[in-house]
């Protein structure tokens, strides 16, 4: 019997038992759908975290007080141990003044929490004292107004740039904020710019007010110490060189290498990639188990089908079917079951992945490799779990099979 006729026979047999075929397929459908959904979700998660890290600027080295465990992940800067008041303002100034090949910009974020007031509206926000370069390094974009100028910085002018959320809370329409006078703590500032909305991993970055570092030090806090020093490197290739130079610089200044850490954004990205890769694999393995169960379901139903059709197999053999004709027929049935299940599962998995992604506000990532893998694995499941029943059928003795009741 040629292939297309065997194929037609297989289709015919599957259609003859519609409900049973569907239920058998359901195992594969659920298996493939969960693999596709889980892997897509994992990849979406990865894409989002990578995106977040990159959104804080690229090629950035951050010097912070205290010791950070290697590979601490994107939030490593909040997990520093020890440390304290070690990053002196003078170091920052010296760094800014020292040209070193590869360093594009040096900035810092000195922060404090203060109420910000306009008219009767008052909100409690994060006030960040920094340099004019920060907005660009952190990839903030202006919605209206302007950034700090060098004069603002040099002369400690009382100017402020409002995050989108702050501006909205105080003024309703954020653009109305530009030019207005607000109070930060007890000091009056002029708003010179408003930023576009920005979030990082669900965290709102718009709830900040940026002022020149000099102003910050003069009017808000007189501390000699900084919370971090941010160095932007011009090219990715220069990161190790600059990192080494910074390490030497601060070891010379502070003395104890346990007192500070240099966080490398590239390291963070790699850590995140490996962590999310593991999570994705884990999800895929769990989902893969359901695919395995689906395969066992196929084997089970194929065995039942062989037993039910023993007489048919005997008759087919008596009138000239070769063992391989019978083998092919049953193998086609099992692989059709799982392949069709795989296709349906793929579609359902994509839909489920999309839905879950939109609920959890993750990006939906569907790689062609996942689709190809899902389909080939489902076909392989059909062949693997179909081969035993099919062999059993092909080896039936026609005499016994014909007499079988």
């Amino acid at each position, binding site marked *: *019997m040629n292939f297309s006729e065997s194929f037609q026979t297989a289709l*015919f047999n599957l259609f003859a038992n519609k409900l049973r075929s569907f239920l058998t397929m359901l195992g594969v459908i659920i298996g493939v759908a969960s693999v596709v959904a889980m892997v897509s979700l994992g990849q979406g998660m990865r894409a989002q975290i990578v995106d977040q890290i990159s959104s804080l600027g690229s090629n950035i080295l951050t010097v912070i007080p205290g010791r950070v465990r290697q590979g601490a992940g994107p939030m490593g800067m909040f997990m520093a141990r020890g440390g304290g008041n070690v990053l002196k303002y003078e170091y920052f100034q010296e760094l800014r003044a020292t040209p070193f090949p590869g360093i594009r910009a040096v900035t810092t974020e000195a922060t404090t929490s203060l109420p910000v007031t306009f008219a009767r509206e008052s909100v409690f926000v994060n006030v960040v004292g920094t340099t004019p370069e920060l907005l660009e390094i952190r990839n903030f974009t202006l919605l209206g107004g302007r950034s700090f100028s060098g004069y603002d910085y040099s002369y400690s002018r009382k100017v402020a740039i409002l995050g989108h959320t702050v501006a909205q809370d105080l003024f309703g329409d954020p653009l109305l904020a530009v030019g207005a006078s607000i109070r930060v703590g007890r000091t009056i500032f002029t708003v010179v710019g408003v930023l576009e909305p920005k979030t990082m991993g669900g965290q709102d970055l718009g709830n900040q007010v940026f002022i020149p570092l000099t102003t910050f030090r003069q009017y808000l806090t007189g501390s000699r110490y900084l919370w971090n020093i941010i160095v932007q490197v011009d090219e990715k290739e220069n990161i190790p060189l600059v990192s080494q130079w910074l390490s030497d610089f601060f070891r010379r200044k502070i003395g104890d290498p346990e007192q500070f850490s240099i966080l490398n954004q590239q390291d963070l990205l790699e850590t995140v990639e490996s962590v999310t890769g593991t999570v994705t694999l884990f999800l895929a393995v769990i989902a893969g188990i359901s695919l395995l169960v689906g395969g066992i379901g196929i084997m089970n139903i194929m065995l039942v089908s062989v037993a039910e059709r023993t007489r048919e197999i005997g008759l087919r053999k*008596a*009138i*000239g079917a070769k063992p391989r*004709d019978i083998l092919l027929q049953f193998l086609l049935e099992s692989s059709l079951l799982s392949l069709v299940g795989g296709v349906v599962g793929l579609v359902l998995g994509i839909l489920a992945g999309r839905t879950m992604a939109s609920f959890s506000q993750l990006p939906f990532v569907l790689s062609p490799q996942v689709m190809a893998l899902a389909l080939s694995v489902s076909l392989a499941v059909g062949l693997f779990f179909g081969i035993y029943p099919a062999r059993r059928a092909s080896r039936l003795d026609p005499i016994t099979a014909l007499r079988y009741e």
Partner: protein
Amino acid sequence: MPPIIRVENLVKVYRTGKVEVRALQGVTFEVHPGEFIAIMGPSGSGKTTLMNILGCLDTPTEGRYILDGVEVSSLRENQLAEIRNRKIGFVFQNFHLLPRLTAFQNVELPLLYASVPKSIRVRRVRDLLERVGLGERMHHRPNELSGGQMQRVAIARALVNDPAIILADEPTGNLDTLSGEEIMSIFQELNEEGRTIILVTHERDIAQHTRRVIHFRDGKILKNEDVTDRIDARRLLEELKRQRSLLEEAG
């Protein structure tokens, strides 16, 4: 003319545990083209075992079986399947039609396994079904057919690959007298056209339709005799039909 079947000293031994059953104990005979033979004998006489071997469904323990010039006893599974497909037409007591296929599809099956192209298949199947009087019921499933009709589908299936011999195992065993007689008349017709037919039966009346009867007992040939007072199925059928219509008129 050389014999179409030649069996020499066939022995078949079954072992079930420690018990040894000698189903055939040295059987030798020949069948020539155009013969119509009945194999008779009580159950356990070895006639089914012989049929299985003649049908290439089973192989003998000892002895030779030559079918249409081919030494069959030494062939492998795939070659046996091919012989069953092309040289032998089976007719079974309980028809063995596939219930989900139509009459047409059932008859077509051996052609599929012989990889015959579709256009030829359609023509052959149609011709044969018309030949056995089922031209109108080609696309009916077995459960829409009577026993006699099912057996006629099975005969069409047996003929479809133009085999060298027809093997019929109790072909009328599940049929009423009239349908049985119809089947026997088809066999007689086929034989008159030159078909070689071997049928197994335990009914003397049925054996009486053939030309030669081989009697079996205890795995051996007891008697091999020509049929003298042969029943003509067509004439008997007319007789039966007349009686029936008379009965109906009276009733």
